[in-house]
């Protein structure tokens, strides 16, 4: 057994009496959040293609995506900040940002509406005239544009 001492904690206790508090006086001093903090979700709605992957993979079911209306809705108090939607988003338009959702007396939901309409889906390759042109033609640029769109 280690030898016992009287008041081994007295030094620490005295030091604490004359030192500054380790806590910050929030809300008078702003809270410091690290860069990676998963505080709340933000969406760049103009980039969203309303695929609904985020809503399907949300464990608490806090997200609703309406493709026709172009809206993306989040129930702020249902969200558990797991970040799964951010991981599955194919357009990477979702991100976790620092800062917690502020408390409220009612269940709050935020709806984001896309202002620009979704681009028309790319025409099927069969609809295009099958013209195996030589690759050197610079005029082929407008035709290659729809091909660059993802099919899904």
């Amino acid at each position, binding site marked *: *057994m*280690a*030898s*016992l*001492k*009287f*008041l*081994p*904690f007295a*030094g*620490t*206790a005295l030091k*604490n009496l004359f030192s500054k508090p*380790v806590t910050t006086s929030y809300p008078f001093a702003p809270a410091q*959040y*690290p*860069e*990676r*903090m*998963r505080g709340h979700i933000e969406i760049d709605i103009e980039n969203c293609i309303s695929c609904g992957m985020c809503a399907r*993979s949300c*464990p608490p079911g806090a997200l609703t995506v309406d493709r026709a209306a172009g809206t993306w809705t989040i129930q702020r108090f249902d969200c*558990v*900040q*797991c*970040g*799964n939607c951010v*991981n599955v988003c194919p357009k990477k338009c979702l991100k*976790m940002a620092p800062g917690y959702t502020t408390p409220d007396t009612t269940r709050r939901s935020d709806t984001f509406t896309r202002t620009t309409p979704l681009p028309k889906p790319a025409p099927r390759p069969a609809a295009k005239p099958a013209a195996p042109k030589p690759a050197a033609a610079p005029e082929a640029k407008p035709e290659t544009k729809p091909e660059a769109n993802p099919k899904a």
Partner: protein
Amino acid sequence: MAKRSIVPFGPQHPVLPEPVHLDLVLEDEVVVDAVPSIGFVHRGLEKLVETKDFKEYVYIAERVCGICSFGHGLGYCQTIEHIMNVEVPPRGRYLRTIWMEMSRVHSHLLWLGLLADAMGFESLFMESWKLREKILDMFDATTGGRVIFSVNCIGGVLKDMDDTMLKNIVDTCNEMERELKPIADAFLRDYTTGSRLHGLGVLTPKDATLMGAVGPMLRASGVAYDARKLGYAAYDELDVEPITATDGDSYARCEVRIKEIGQSFSLIRQAVAQIPAGPIAVPVKGMPNGEYFTRIEQPRGEAIYYVKANGTKFIDRFRLRTPTTSNIPPMLNMLKGCQLADVPLLILTIDPCISCTER
């Protein structure tokens, strides 16, 4: 024979924040029997596995407990990875080890604070939790969460740490190790704490083994068993020796946990020194089919994860045996013969997590 009386203890008790109820049978001030009843915080998290995608369930698995959350996510992922024959990249395994050891430090410091609080040593409680805050800040900076980390995924981890972050972790560990010393001294060498802990709730090595004690509780009775020796994550490449004590009393359990904090700092330093470069996760394709069980060493002791999958995205059965479940029978044995005033302290020395136990 003295008159017997029954005193209900919990589930709401000022000293013990865990929702366990005990009917204490007393003879005068001495406990002669304790009858537990649990089930106050059952949430049915195991059942949820049947309705959630197996990849999404990682987020639910880690919400089983607010302290061992990283370990629960890790245990579940490891089990699925074994079923699907997924090899986690070395960097992913090392990152898991670093976060697991940080969880251990965080859990043990929380326990030390609670122990001080149960003894009425409030300033020591504050000091322990002040130190723990540094670990939580490190978690926040590296994973994005203080308590629920959401960094585990099937096939590896979701977030990497750069060299600056790894260096910060080592620096913070070194600083914390220095700051832990006076706190450890207050727990292990103070007359007041010593008089509350010495000789309280002695568990012999034979009893500990027979009753299935796990973790620091088993090691404090002198049995050198640590599931980290099984070599999951990156533990097979690190130097892990079980820390034991011989007395088997509450003081020994406190001593083991304090020494384990130091061991965790050393493991974090080793892991940071050896961490290889490379990918942190591998993509996982297909659905799991089969069954497997994994054991990992949680801060509170050995936990068992069992998964039975059927080839679809939903899993048939997930079973989690938490360390507290194993530690309750030896705790009931220890309670017999102790003073009523020592009951909260004694229950606390097993580091109970009833929410984990009931899932």
